[in-house]
């Protein structure tokens, strides 16, 4: 790789093999250099997810106060993602820690939602009704996916 390509900013002189931003990005992805972008995506994903969870859990009155955890982890994930975007060190420390917490919280949520469905009148014997009307069965796994994105970002190489 050319040392020139390491330079940041739009004003960077075009490196010979990759005159366009898009080319550079493709080349970065091909070489596993996707850390900063995925960090930012993790940050955005955390915020969007947390906002949606806030609305859904508020609808259910935060009956179990544990329901606040994914809402609070949203800003944490966002901060870690932005930090990972800005600093390589953060991308290797704060980001994986926060992401692991988010992924684990998603698994915990899955367990709690499964338990919630089971405890609805009729339980699993009326599975269709209770899954449709009860706590959303697969929604917490989407949170785990966001956490997984952050973990993956931490493992990737940094863009040039």
């Amino acid at each position, binding site marked *: 790789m050319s040392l020139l390509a390491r330079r940041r900013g739009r004003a960077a002189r075009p490196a010979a093999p990759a005159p366009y931003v898009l080319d550079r990005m493709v080349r970065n992805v091909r070489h596993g250099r996707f850390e900063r972008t995925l960090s930012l995506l993790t940050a955005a994903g955390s915020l969007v997810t947390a906002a949606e969870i806030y609305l859904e859990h508020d609808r259910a009155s935060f009956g179990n106060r544990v329901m606040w955890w994914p809402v609070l982890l949203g800003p944490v994930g966002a901060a870690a993602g932005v930090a990972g975007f800005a600093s390589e060190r953060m991308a290797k420390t704060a980001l994986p820690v926060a992401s692991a917490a988010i992924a684990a919280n998603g698994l915990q949520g899955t367990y709690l939602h499964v338990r919630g469905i089971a405890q609805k009148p009729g339980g699993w014997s009326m599975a269709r009704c209770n899954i449709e*009307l009860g706590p959303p069965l697969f929604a917490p796994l989407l949170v785990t996916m966001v956490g997984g994105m952050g973990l993956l970002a931490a493992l990737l190489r940094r863009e040039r």
Partner: protein
Amino acid sequence: MTTPGRHNPRFTGYDVLARAGTWDAATSGVVLSRTAVQPGLRFFTLAEEATARPLFDHLLAQWDEPRVPVLQMVDARLAEMQTDGWRFADMPEDDEAWRRSLAGLDDDARALHGAPFGGLARERQAALVRAVRDTGSARWHGMPAGHVWGLWTRYTATAFYSHPWAWNEIGFGGPAYPRGYVRLGLGLREPWEVADQHPVDPVTDSGQAVGSRSAGAERVGTAGHRAAPPRGLAAAARAAAGTLRLTTAPTGRIRDRNASAWLLPRDDRRFDRSLIDGMRRHEDDDEVDLVVIGCGAGGATLTQRMARHGWSVVCLEAGPFWNPDTDWVSDEAGSHHLYWTEPRVVSGTDPVPLGANNSGRGVGGSTTHFAGYAPRFHPSDFATLSGDGVGADWPLRYADLRASYERLEQELPVAGQYWPWGDPHPYPHAPHPVGGNGEVFLRGAAALGIGARVGPVAITNGRFGNRPHCVYRGFCLQGCKVNAKASTLITHVPDALAHGAEIRADCMVTGIELDAQGRLATGVRYLREGRERFQRARAVAVAGYSVETPRLLLNSACRRFPEGLCNDFDLVGRYVMVQGAPQTSGRFAEEVRAYKAPPPEVSSEDFYETDPAKPYKRGFSLQTVSPLPVVWAEHVAAQGHWGEDLRTYMRDYVHWATLGALCELLPLPDNRVTLSQEKDRYGLPVAHFSYSQCDNDRMLIRAAQTVMEDVLRAAGATEVITINRYAHLVGGCRMAAGPGSGVVDADLRTFAVPNLLVTDGSVLPTQGSANPALTIMALVDRAAARLAAGARSGLRAPAGAPR
């Protein structure tokens, strides 16, 4: 797919019985027995049967097989005396009224046509039946014809519309536990529900588009209506902050003062029987700290609070200790046992029927089958005399109850939007999704600029302890089998039992005993398994509600109180109040299917306060109510419809939305409970409840009806009908500043006997336009704290005092 008479059904192919596999066992047993072969007649004689059979056919227009076995169902009710208990003072008991009215009809036939009723041509029979209806309030064979007509239509419509074949005809969803409903809202159907094939209004023939205001809708009652609740950014921020405060506060704090929700089972059972098995049990000779009479809203709350304070408490309840799994059913006609059905007599110019919406029985009292509306009273309610010149001033202020209101709203818990009326406040649980009936109310209110909010209902919206989320099955008034709707059976009794209280069910208290000097209460006499017993106690609290509490005090007359206990000033039993509760229904082209979602959904308190522009004082609140088929049949029958007319209206059931008002009727001294000459099965005089309205009451009820009609028309109703009825009971032992004006003080202690309390709805001096349950509980919460703060020894009966 059977329908009565196999008439061309509007819901072709719909079969509620096909869903029977999803019903719980208790409900299936009750409902399916109606389709089974019926036992022979036990009550009606052969001659009565010959009259009753054609009469029932006329009342319900049942001319073809298969018939709903109405004759057998009515016969079984009368043979087993499953009546509502009460009777009008000018009517005999229901069974006797049936015999006399059937004989009267037969006499009419013989007098007019010289033949028994059963032998007449159908047209002649119909003319005789119609003649009874048209007699109105005049007397007919010694009874008011209107009451006879009410008796006939009430029994027959209840039987007919409790039958699954009738449900097939009207498209009703039937029992809904444990299944519940998923698709709530106008025009929405479950996958198994069948659309109405002929959605044209059979009465007005109107197929008008929905959403537009119907022709001729004028704002009669809502013109120039009062101030709307505050709007704007600051109000919104306050609401959001208040709600956030409630949803972030640790639930552990609630659990620390009342762990009931965490003491319920997590599995498919609804009450932990080991709590009853392991209950502390006292001997009759134990002088307990407190004996509570009645285990409803007030009694159970007091029992729990005092048990928490370490008092030894025995709560005596006349009814059973309910097991919701086996004792309660998702069925209207099968839920009579939840009401107080002992005999009572009602009279006055506006007599108040008792039972479904103003009485309760068993542990949990009427909270087991109340709708669940849990609004607070407004600050103005506590001083209506000084504020508006009517009613009475309370010996306490709203501020004295605010903390109690907040505590109880968290313990029930109450779900609803931020409440902008009265003292604005947030609710701990979020508002529930709204069904078709609620959508209609919101739409109509928005069109007229009336503020309407979702809530406040004491139904969990989300997890609370081990109580699950509501499943929107619509049978709130038949006892919640889900444990989602609050009743003291699940909100206060488990914690009381866990803290050493004894709840002794099936014990009917017959009298309160004083010491020889008549200064202090020493205990209560009660009947258990047919034997009279006496429970000694240092303090006694009566919580039997507005009819039974005065009756017990009056029945406990002694040498010191010859006119009844605490009745030195002739105040016991006076100032009993009901709320005027007209219900207005509107017909919509869309399917409303009001039976889905809880009946309590949306309410408005825009008309709560006195409007200086109006000729009447005080106001009313508006709420959704969603009648199930049997109650809906009462609505239709109240318009005078019978026979084919009744069936036609009923087939239109899924298109009707219903609103109810609660009008604040004023306390009047002559609206009172006294003792009747009649005795009950224990040999005690039964209560006689006389009620008459004043002019202010009549104006309020008419105004509320007009507003509801406006709202429904604004929402697009093509036809509206109104039924006049009452709801709730309060007063009878009202609290006041001094013994000359009331029976108890602000701490609910009687003025006459220092260790005797009255802790139920009968202490309310006025009743506002709010449902009373939350206020009853709040008053008791406050009184319990005051009682516990006072030295317990202060109430102790003098050592060795003779009984």
